[in-house]
């Protein structure tokens, strides 16, 4: 006599999470699956109805789902592994957020590495907006973060998927004198184009940061042979006085305007090493609103020690930035994304929560 177990086998494993944002016909996005296991925790508040587009006042605006990515203890303890799989159906939109910096706690041995792996599959015309708080590795922490984004190739007239990902890391607990004093921080962001029919994958972008305290090649000759004397030669020396460093990755039609704005502002930066005429010029009287805004932002940038660059690369706009402190960087990112305005318009104000 055969016996069938009436319960589905449990598929959940520690630290694993699965999210499937599906499309209920005709066009209602629903979070079909949200599962997670300790120490990972996912919270999905009520989805947000965006106001209707002014040009089509009768059709309701898109429904935006939000997901908070949390861990017990507010971070990763040595040896923790979190593995999250996200799937976005065509035309759906997801906002990913965190609640405070992801803390990486001290590890007893550099070989015991905490890991966070996310694998996101974006169907054509879907959009992901991921503007989290920074990662904060404490002294003697070791962590490896890996985020893979698969963009399914659009067929016919369907627009491509859109992606906005912020990845930033801070020097640790500055108040406790921690300055890039962790063992290792590795962060990988990869974006792949996936041909659904053939299954062929092609790498579009790989952004790997490898911050190892003991990378030998970076030490000076004296330091390499006398490891005890290397404190100033370690990571902190490589970071050139910055307390936070980040990368913003933008792609797709939804973020086209935002990418354009970053490129425009980068082009408009004053030349480095040129004479700063505006300093001794009499107070400007007829600056346009844009110029006034720029001038204010530049003043802020100078005050916060913000250094940044933007580049258009293989269909992406890649922004790299550094600042003396997290708050300065936060202010800068919020200012840039906020003044352009499309993220709040397309995803709601909530998408900028971690930048507040």
């Amino acid at each position, binding site marked *: 006599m055969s016996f069938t177990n009436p319960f589905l086998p449990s598929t959940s494993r520690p630290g694993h999470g699965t999210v499937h944002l599906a499309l209920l016909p005709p066009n209602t996005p629903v979070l079909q699956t949200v599962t997670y296991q300790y120490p990972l925790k996912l919270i999905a508040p009520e989805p947000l109805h965006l106001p209707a587009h002014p040009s089509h006042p009768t059709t309701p605006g898109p429904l935006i789902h939000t997901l908070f990515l949390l861990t017990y203890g507010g971070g990763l303890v040595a040896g923790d592994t979190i593995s999250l799989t996200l799937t976005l159906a065509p035309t759906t939109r997801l906002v990913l957020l965190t609640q405070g910096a992801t803390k990486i706690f001290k590890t007893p041995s550099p070989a015991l590495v905490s890991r966070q792996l996310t694998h996101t599959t974006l169907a054509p015309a879907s959009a992901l907006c991921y503007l989290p708080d920074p990662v904060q590795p404490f002294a003697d922490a070791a962590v490896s973060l890996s985020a893979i984004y698969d963009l399914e190739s659009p067929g016919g007239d369907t627009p491509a998927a859109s992606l906005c990902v912020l990845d930033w890391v801070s020097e640790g607990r500055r108040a406790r004198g921690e300055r890039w004093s962790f063992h290792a921080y590795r962060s990988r962001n990869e974006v792949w184009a996936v041909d659904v029919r053939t299954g062929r994958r092609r790498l579009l972008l*790989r952004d*790997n940061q490898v911050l190892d305290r003991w990378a030998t090649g970076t030490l*000076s000759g004296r330091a390499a042979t006398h490891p005890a004397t290397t404190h100033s030669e370690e990571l902190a*020396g490589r970071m050139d006085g910055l307390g936070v*460093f980040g990368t913003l990755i933008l792609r797709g039609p939804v973020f086209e305007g935002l990418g354009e704005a970053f490129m425009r502002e980068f082009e408009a930066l004053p*030349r480095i090493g040129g004479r700063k005429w505006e300093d001794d010029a009499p107070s400007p009287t007829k600056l346009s609103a844009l110029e006034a805004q720029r001038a204010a932002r530049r003043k802020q940038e100078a005050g916060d020690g913000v*250094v940044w*660059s933007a580049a258009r690369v293989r269909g992406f706009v890649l922004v790299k930035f550094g600042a003396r402190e997290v708050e300065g960087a936060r202010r800068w990112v919020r200012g840039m994304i906020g003044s352009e305005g499309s993220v709040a318009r397309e995803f709601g104000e909530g998408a900028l929560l971690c930048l507040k």
Partner: protein
Amino acid sequence: MTSTNDDQQSLQNEIASLERKLRDAKARLTTDAPLAPSTPANDVALHALLLLSDSALPLGSFAFSSGLESYLAHHRPSPPTASQVPSFHTFLRLSLSTLASTALPYVLAAYREPEKIETLDNDFDASTPCTVARRASVTQGRALLAIWDRSFRSHYTESSKANGHAVGLDSLTSFQALIRSASSAEDGFQRNAHLAPLWGLTTRILQVPLHDAAYLFLFSHARTVISAAVRASVLGPYQAQGVLASQDLQERIRSLVEEMWERKVEDAGQTVPVMDLWVGRHEKLYSRIFNS
């Protein structure tokens, strides 16, 4: 008395001539012994190595400072007369580390698996986040291809085939064909011809041992940066040769090659994040003498 004097004189002459003979014999002995028969051990590799390390090799490297110019603009000495030499040394160290961690794995991979050149070129392009660095890498990569085409190909085709490097040769030929048809690339992906993977492939065809190829890749970069420093008036020409000859640089290159020897290309990454900022902001300099 006279006869004794004469005797003395002739004795002394004899002693002198004997001593000279002894000295000649000794000299012959010492020069003969190490004059082992000339061993043509690996002069094919040596010759190729010399070709590639020649600063007259038209790679156009002189046009690039790899971020040095921008770095110096971001680190003006506080009294403007202070020496920039210490900050140059810091930059050289960080620049070599960056190049080794981002590009060297691609050199090694293209040498070891030449048939993957197209994927390596694409992945390297995907991993180069900054337009200025990409421009420098592609310009030099294409220049290397041109040198191969116009100068080396006819002399190395036969010998590489004979030495079992046909795979490398075929890969290079088909990659070149791809590049020529790049404008009509139907999948919308451009082939770029980055220096790092092509360096690996070319050195394999020229039969340079892998370790030497990797060492020379880093050495050439150091030489380019140092020569840029001379032209940017940071170092004097003798000082520059001194840096290039230094034990410190030798050990650094050796240890970087060691460290990256088994690094997979997927794990190649930026060890000095600010380097991307400096190189990327080169375009924002008020005045420039270099292309990167």
